[in-house]
Every structure is written in structure tokens, then in C-alpha cells.
């Protein structure tokens, strides 16, 4: 970006800010508080507060359930709304600052509600955010997935612009971005590998999760670090009223959660565990190799919060998960561990602050014993501090600012043999970010949110740094001592969104965003490989930069019963990474010499139609898109489809609340196959028939489609006790989707070569029992 642009933007920013402050002249007071679930004390995120006397004025709770609204003195009626809860009204005589908490009662039975009034605000139309998707846990729980295991990351793939990587893979592509371009946050900590069992499950136990929000590259300025998306996942706080136990028993795994008060109404804890038991089945096998196999994963989620006083609250949360695979002479285990300590502080009723200390670690360990014991260990670790301020200036303007500082340590691989140890050079980096953003209502019709994020990424010593010639041979090595700054990349990331309200509950929104990514996952495999390497920006690897513009139209019908949206986007990527032909990415000290740097572009249109309430709910999403890249060394320097290019992507989701006893649901997905490289001929060399390839990604896998069905029989449902059986069918019409296609000699006729398709899953029935007491 040009310097003059930066200056102009900064000036505009301050001008608008001063304008806000000027509007503060009158005698005003602040109402603030927390919105909670009355039954268990869970703080409700994005609940809406409206004011009867001032239509069009309101507030939304932040991720800690906090809201603040500043109004001229007077008498007001405040209404708190949240999907699935009874709305609640409170009358306030505003003469001085007031604290007002709302405790909302969950609707006992949503079936009785046929006419929907005001249960859901038209947030999708009137909010400034675009390219954002939220799913309620209730929806996620009713949507069938593989083995009946509810899965957040699988379910968000049913939303427009978010495409699955493939069968049995929890990775996903957002708007044509690779799966490492998604920042996955669990209570603010980065989860580096969100896959269990090589991708068949995600690491998120849905029993432990409260809220999921996906930003498709349009994230507000407080987020950053990845090009394509942010998936912000929040864990349950725990029940601060009473002890409660819930769980489930399925074919593949069992889950158990315990929650309860630490101090009634003022503190709670929540603890969830999950473990698979596929290894119990392998133990029954007659095949000795299968019998000796170890094959399981587990997850532990824990969280506690405590209210010190009205102005201070602390939270501590953690996650630990591990996968263990092993057969005779080979073992592989991997897992994430993350922890966050947070402190909410109210400086004034208008100024909310959160301070977070964040730790995240991902590691894997390989053991091979082919006579000698060999171990390979690798990890990526970060520790950071994050400070956020939210300043609720007036109902029309909210200012957010903060900073973030993270220190990374990369251990790409240490190999230990009985007589020697060898390790790839460790890497150390320091990432800093400073942001400011403002949400501003300019007129009754026009709202905007604009912000700036300044990031720095420093590559630190100690270490040896190589530079390479065009052939990839190291030409120079520089050695640096500990703590030395080797290279620092600064980037300014502007974010701008606007919403213009149109008559008839509809709106137009537009946005421009820049995102920068300094940590890159190096993998040339489409399957989720736990041993893929994270590589920071360096002397050779520049930060990847994406600029995205998008425009959308939103409209709700019949009092927000139906919603519809259409968004178009165009994204331009600089310093995109791909790999040389035959790149060697495993245990290569010179892995950077195997990379290619080029350009990328992605564009598309996303349609989304949803029915929000009633006996039948669900949505239809359709995305038409293209993702291409351009590298001088590949396909003659022309644009070619990225692996994640998906022309068509359709998801159809239906949930039918048939009676108080039965809930039926189904999903159907269809998408264009990945762009792949297939041979366009063959030849013989040393008696071996080899494939002849002419271009990268010149072919397509066959289209993928699948229907899943699920039926839940509710045995008991009261305010405190629940039990149910869920029956589901994955791939109900037994479609043989291609997982991979390989080309081999035909064993019947060695003169011929044949294409062999591998299918992972045909039809799979499953049954799960869930309970809560």
C-alpha cells in the first residue's frame, strides 16, 4: 500500500473519531450488564438488547456476555433477545449509571411456537459484519455426521463459501484458500492441527463448545494471522447453579461432561472428556498385526471462571488431546495442548477490558523399530499476551483497540537413533499486532466498521539461515546468535465494512480487507497429515498477503422467519506458496529451496437461504467459485486451478421436529471434484511403465455427493434431565465417492494400464445414546 494512502486513511480514522466524541455533549448515563442463561448461568454471546422507546437503538453482548449502552437520562424499557430463549423486558429509570443483568429462560419446547415474533433479530441484515457465519450448538447437535459424532468443523462445511477438503477430512477450504489459511481459535488459543485420526474427526468435542463463529476473510481488526478465515470457538463456562452430568455412548467413542458451581452464581467449572475405542475392536481381530494395533484418541476440555466482583472476572481454560497409532514396529502420536488465562475488567461501565495469557503447543512423535529404535519428535509452540479494549462511546459508536504479542518456537524435527541425534534447525519468531477499529452508525441507514491492524513478524536467532540460487542449491549461510533480529516484516492491514439498510428488511453490505499470514503449513498432500511442517516467514519465505473485496445483498422475509443472502467476492493473493515438481518436504534442512512463490486469485458468488424457526428448519447453500494460482515454474507460467478450486458446492440441510419424541434431520452435499494431476500418456523406462504428466492440476476428481440421515428419539426431556437415542445413516444411498484414483498395470492384462478408484466410506449406520442429569 502506498504511504499516502496510509496517511489519508489514518486521518479519516481520527476525523471520524473526533466526530464521535463531539456527539457526547448531552447528559448521558450508561446501562451495562451481563446476559446469561437463567438455568445454568452460561453467558450468552451476541444476545441483543433493544430499547422500546428508541427503535433502531440497541447493543449486542460481546464474547463474555457483556453489553453496555449509553443513553440520555430518561425512562426506558430494555428487551433482551437470544435465539431459543424467552425474551425478557426490564424497565429502567435512567438518572445515573445502572447495572442491569438479564437472565433468559430457555424455551421449554420450541415446537409450540408457530408464529415467530421478535425471537430473532435481523442481525444478518442490519449488522455491519458480512462474510460471517454463526451456527448454534442446537443446530450442530441435530445435524448428522460420520459415525453419529457431532462435529463442529464438519458442520460449518455445510455453509456457503466453506468447502470440505474431502471425505473423512476435517480440513476445509474457505473461499478458495488452502486449509492452513484458516485460523482456528479455541478460547483465543491457536489450534495448529484440528484433526483426529488423520482427519476423520475434528478435535472439538461438541459437548464442551458453546459458540462457533466463522469469518470468511472479513474479520474485524482484532483478528489476524491467516489469509482465508477465522474460526472462533468458545468453550462452555459451566453451570454456576447446580452440578450436572451429561454424556453420550456411541459406536466409535464415548463422552462425559461434568459441570457445576464453584461459588453459586459467581463461579463455575466445566470438564469434558472423550475417548474412542476402535482399538477394542482391533483387539478382537484374528489378524495378529491388526490385533496388536493401537488406535485411539482422547480429548480433555476444562474451563473455570470466577467473578471476583462486579468489575472483575477471571477465566481459565485448557484443552489437551492426543492421537495414538501403533502397529508392531511403528508408532505415531500427536496432539495439541492449549491453555488460556483471561481477566475481564471494567474500567468504567463504558470501558471493557480483557487481558489474555495464551499458550499453545502442537507436537508429534514417531517411533520406528526396525532393529534399532529411532524416534522423531517435532513441535510448534507459542506463548502470547493479548490485550483488548472495548469502549462503548454511544449507541452509535463502539471503539475497539488492543495489542497482541506472541513468541513462537518451531522444532521442525529431532531424530534420535541409538548412536546419534540429528536435528533440523529450530526456529524462533516474534509476532506483534496493534489494532484499532470503530463501529459507527453514520445515519439511520448507513453503518460502518473500519479498522487498521499493524503487524510485525520478526525472525529471531539463533540459527543458520540459507539463501538459494534458482536451482535450489544453498549459496550462502549466515549464522546468527540468540535473540538477534534477522528480519522483520511490517504490514498494515486495513479493514472496512459498510451496511446500507434498504426498505423491506433488506440491506446491501460491502467490505475490503487485507490479511497477512506469516506461518505456513508445508504439505503436498491433500490428506490431513499430522507430520506436516509449519514454516514461518524467513529470508526466503515472504509473508503471504490477501486482499479481498466483497459485496452482498441480504433480505429477510416474514418477520425474519426466512433469510436470504447473496455475496460476491474477489480475492487477490501475493507471495502464495506452492511446491516444485518432486519437492522433498520431509526432514529436509533446505525445505525452503523446494518452494515456489507466486500469485493467486479467487472469486465467486455464494447464495444462502434459511428457514429459522417452526417445525421445519434448515438451509440451502450454493457456491459458484474459482481459485487459481500462477507460478513461473509451473504450467508455463499460466494461471491454473488450485487444488481447492471448487466450481459448484451445494449443501442442503433440513431438520424436522416431528413431535416431542422425534426429531429427523438430513443433509445432502454435492461438490465438484478437486483439481488433480492425472497422466496424459505413458512410457517405458528400465522395463517399468511410467505415467507421463503434461500439466499440474489439469484434471478433476469425479463430483462428490452424499446424503446423510438421522433420527433422534427423545426418551425424556425436562429442565434438568435429558436422554435420547440417535440413529444415523452416513452416505444413505451408498454412493462410491472417489477418495483417490491411481493408475496401475492391469493384473489381468499386463499390456494395459487401469485406473483404480479408492472409496473410503460406503453406507455407515450408527447409533448413539446421549444423556444429561
Amino acid at each position, binding site marked *: 500500500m502506498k504511504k499516502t494512502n496510509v496517511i489519508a486513511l489514518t486521518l479519516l480514522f481520527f476525523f471520524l473519531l473526533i466526530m464521535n466524541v463531539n456527539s457526547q455533549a448531552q447528559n448521558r448515563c450508561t446501562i451495562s450488564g451481563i446476559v446469561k442463561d437463567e438455568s445454568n448461568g452460561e453467558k450468552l454471546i451476541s444476545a441483543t438488547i433493544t430499547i422500546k422507546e428508541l427503535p433502531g437503538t440497541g447493543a449486542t453482548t460481546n464474547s463474555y456476555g457483556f453489553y453496555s449502552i449509553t443513553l440520555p437520562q430518561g425512562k426506558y424499557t430494555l428487551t433482551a433477545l437470544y435465539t431459543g430463549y424467552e425474551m425478557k423486558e426490564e424497565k429502567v429509570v435512567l438518572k445515573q449509571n445502572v447495572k442491569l443483568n438479564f437472565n433468559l429462560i430457555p424455551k421449554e419446547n420450541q415446537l409450540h411456537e408457530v408464529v415467530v415474533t421478535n425471537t430473532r433479530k435481523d442481525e444478518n441484515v442490519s449488522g455491519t459484519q458480512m462474510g460471517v457465519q454463526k451456527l448454534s450448538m442446537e443446530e450442530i447437535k441435530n445435524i448428522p455426521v460420520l459415525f453419529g459424532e457431532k462435529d463442529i468443523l464438519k458442520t460449518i462445511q455445510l455453509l456457503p463459501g466453506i468447502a470440505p477438503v474431502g471425505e473423512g477430512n476435517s480440513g476445509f477450504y474457505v473461499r478458495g484458500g488452502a486449509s492452513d489459511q484458516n485460523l482456528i481459535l479455541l478460547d483465543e488459543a491457536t489450534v495448529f492441527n484440528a484433526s483426529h485420526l*488423520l482427519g476423520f474427526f475434528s478435535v472439538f468435542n461438541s459437548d464442551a463448545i458453546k459458540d462457533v463463529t466463522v469469518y470468511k476473510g472479513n474479520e474485524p481488526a482484532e483478528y489476524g494471522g491467516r489469509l482465508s478465515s477465522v474460526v472462533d470457538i468458545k468453550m462452555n463456562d459451566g453451570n454456576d447453579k447446580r452440578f450436572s452430568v451429561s454424556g453420550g455412548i456411541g459406536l466409535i467413542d464415548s463422552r462425559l461432561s461434568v459441570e457445576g458451581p464453584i461459588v453459586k452464581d459467581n463461579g463455575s467449572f466445566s470438564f469434558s472428556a472423550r475417548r474412542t475405542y476402535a482399538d477394542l475392536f*482391533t483387539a478382537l*481381530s484374528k489378524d495378529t*498385526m*491388526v490385533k496388536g*494395533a493401537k*488406535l485411539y484418541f482422547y480429548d480433555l476440555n476444562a474451563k473455570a471462571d470466577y467473578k471476583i466482583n462486579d468489575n472483575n472476572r477471571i477465566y481459565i481454560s485448557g484443552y489437551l488431546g492426543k492421537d495414538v497409532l501403533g502397529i508392531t514396529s*511403528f508408532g*505415531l502420536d500427536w496432539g495439541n495442548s492449549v491453555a488460556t488465562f483471561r481477566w475481564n475488567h471494567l474500567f468504567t461501565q463504558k470501558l471493557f477490558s480483557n487481558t489474555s495469557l495464551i499458550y499453545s503447543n502442537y507436537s508429534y512423535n*514417531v517411533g*520406528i523399530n*526396525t*532393529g*534399532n529404535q*529411532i524416534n522423531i519428535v517435532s513441535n510448534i509452540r507459542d506463548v502470547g499476551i493479548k490485550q483488548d479494549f472495548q469502549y462503548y462511546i454511544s449507541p452509535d459508536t463502539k471503539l475497539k483497540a488492543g495489542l497482541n504479542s506472541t513468541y513462537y518456537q518451531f522444532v521442525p524435527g529431532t*531424530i534420535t*537413533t541409538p548412536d546419534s541425534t*540429528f536435528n533440523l534447525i529450530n526456529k524462533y519468531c516474534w509476532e506483534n499486532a496493534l489494532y484499532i477499529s470503530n463501529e459507527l452508525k453514520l445515519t439511520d441507514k448507513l453503518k460502518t466498521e473500519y479498522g487498521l491492524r499493524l503487524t510485525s513478524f520478526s525472525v529471531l536467532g539463533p540459527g543458520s539461515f540459507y539463501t538459494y540460487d534458482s536451482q535450489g542449491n544453498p549459496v550462502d549461510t549466515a549464522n546468527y546468535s540468540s535473540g538477534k533480529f534477522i528480519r522483520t516484516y511490517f504490514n498494515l492491514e486495513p479493514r472496512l465494512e459498510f451496511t446500507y439498510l434498504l426498505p423491506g428488511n433488506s440491506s446491501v453490505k460491502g467490505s475490503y480487507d487485507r490479511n497477512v499470514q506469516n506461518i505456513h503449513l508445508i504439505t503436498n*498432500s491433500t*490428506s490431513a497429515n499430522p507430520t506436516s511442517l509449519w514454516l514461518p516467514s524467513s529470508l526466503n519465505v515472504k509473508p503471504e498477503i490477501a486482499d479481498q473485496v466483497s459485496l452482498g445483498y441480504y433480505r429477510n422475509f416474514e418477520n425474519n422467519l426466512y433469510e436470504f443472502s447473496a455475496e460476491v467476492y474477489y480475492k487477490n493473493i501475493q507471495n502464495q506458496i506452492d*511446491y516444485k*515438481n*518432486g*519437492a*522433498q518436504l520431509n*526432514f529436509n534442512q533446505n525445505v525452503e529451496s523446494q518452494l515456489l512463490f507466486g500469485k493467486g486469485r479467487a472469486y465467486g458468488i455464494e447464495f444462502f437461504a434459511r428457514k429459522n424457526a417452526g417445525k421445519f428448519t434448515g438451509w440451502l447453500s450454493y457456491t459458484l467459485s474459482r481459485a487459481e494460482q500462477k507460478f513461473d515454474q509451473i504450467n508455463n507460467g499460466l494461471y491454473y486451478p488450485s487444488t481447492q478450486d471448487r466450481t459448484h458446492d451445494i449443501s442442503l440441510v433440513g431438520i424436522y421436529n416431528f413431535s416431542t419424541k422425534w426429531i429427523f434431520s438430513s443433509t445432502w452435499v454435492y461438490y465438484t471434484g478437486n483439481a*488433480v*494431476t492425472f*497422466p*496424459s*500418456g*505413458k*512410457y*517405458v*523406462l*528400465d*522395463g*517399468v511403465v*511410467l505415467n*507421463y*504428466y*503434461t500439466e*499440474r*492440476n*489439469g484434471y478433476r476428481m469425479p463430483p462428490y455427493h452424499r446424503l446423510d440421515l438421522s433420527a433422534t428419539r427423545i426418551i425424556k426431556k425436562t429442565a434438568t434431565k435429558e436422554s435420547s437415542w440417535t440413529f444415523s445413516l452416513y452416505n444413505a444411498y451408498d454412493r*462410491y465417492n472417489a*477418495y*483417490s484414483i491411481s*493408475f496401475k*498395470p492391469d*493384473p489381468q492384462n*499386463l*499390456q494395459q494400464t*487401469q*485406473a*483404480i478408484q*479408492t*472409496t*473410503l*466410506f460406503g453406507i455407515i449406520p450408527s447409533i448413539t445414546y446421549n444423556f444429561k442429569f
Partner: protein
Amino acid sequence: MNMKNQSEIYRKLTKSFVLMFIVCFWSCQEVIHVDLNSASPKLIIDAGISDQQEPYTVVLSQTVAFDLNNTFPPVTGALVVISDNAGNIDTLIENKPGTYQTTNIQGIPGHTYTITVKSDNTVYTAISTMPFPVPIDTVVSKNRFGTKNKELSVSFNDPKGIDNYYRIIEKITYYLPDPGRIILPTLGTVSTDKLMDGTKITVSPGFNQPELLTGDSVLVSLECIDKNVYTYFRTASQTGNQSTTVSNPVSNITNGALGYFSAYTVRYYKILVN
């Protein structure tokens, strides 16, 4: 054991584990039809010179469309010349269609060889330096991981102080007739002495070699090759179908011809699999 080889093994083990997991539980394979383009024919140069007694042969052929039989048209009438840095030049004679033979040049370790092929008015060249030979120390047979088959472990003493690149080829000279057994030739396994310089190196060629049964006779050859030829075979074995960077092997021949030119030394070892 060699590092590169280790990471290779471990990559394959990961893969085989996934495969095992999948195969045991759900997956299935079927033959399908895929519409593939027919690229225009391309020249393949299969050329080598070794420290064994001359003559040496160079085979020129062409690619064919994927759906056709494995009959590859020879490229005739080409001019093929091999020379070395000691001033020896040999113009090869085409003694049957597409097969060209040297007349006098003898491969000598340490010499650098150049091949020039002129065909259809295009000139292709490649350069390769012949390393010094390394004898095989021992070969033992053992059970192949996860199967009832056998495989071989090949050991040799790596000379210290120089970068060595190895290629191991197992040729079954006599095999037990077993119903349904199909023996397909393979390109062999390559390995380096990186991080293992000057030590005794043991390579379990494993997945790039034929599956063996007790009673088979195998002729193992240990070729010392140069770095570019090593790169050729390393990239030739990367054809995993989940890979996003599948391509033709990285060749040392100019002008886009497929294949390779290798100046190599070779030592043999015979073993009866038990």
C-alpha cells in the same frame, strides 16, 4: 540407517497405516474409467554407461496414449554420441530399431560423460559423472512389515569424506511359481549417505522392490550414481495419489526429453531368500 531413507520409510509407514485402518474397516477399490487426454508423443532417452565391460546401450522410444497397449514405438534414425572429459568420443550404432550401442568407449570411474542425442532436428544433451564403486557387504532376508512376504536388507560401508548416492535394484533370477503371483520390474530404491557419511549403511529397500517369497533367487545390484540421477529416481518414486505435486521425474536431460542418462558403477550380490 540413512535419514532420507528413514523419513521415506516413515512416510510410507504412515501411509500404510492409514491404508490398513481403512482397508480393515470400510474402504473398497474398484476399476473405473477416466477420460484422459492424449498428449503428443514425447521422446524418452534411457541411457547409461557403467564401469562394466562395454558395450553399453541407449534406448530411444516414445510415449503412447494411456489407453493403448504397452507397446512403445522406437525412435529410429537418431544420432547418439557419448563422449568423456578425457577426449574419447563414440558414435553409437543402431543395431535394432530404437536401440543404439557403443562401439569402443569404456566407462571409467571419475570420468565425466556427455551424451548428445539428435532426433527430429532437436538436440538433447545430458552430463553425468561416474562415481567410484562401493561393494555390497551383506544382504539378509527378513519378513516384510505387515505381510507374509519377504524383503531384503542391503548393507555396505560408505566411504568417508565424499557425498555418495546409491541405487539398489533387486532382480529375481528364479522365482517360486505361485498362483496369481505377478512379478513387475521396479525402478529400485535410492539412498544417500547424508548424515551417515563413512558409516555402515543398511537399506531396507521395501516398498519399491518386488515382493519376495522363500526360495526365490535374487541378484542385488548396488549402483553408485551421481546426484542428478539420484534426484531423478527420488522424484520418480513420488507418485502418491494424495500428492498435489505429482509430476514427471526431474530429468538431467535438456530440452524436455523424458528419461535419464546415468554414468554409474555397479557391484552385485546373489542371495537365495530363506
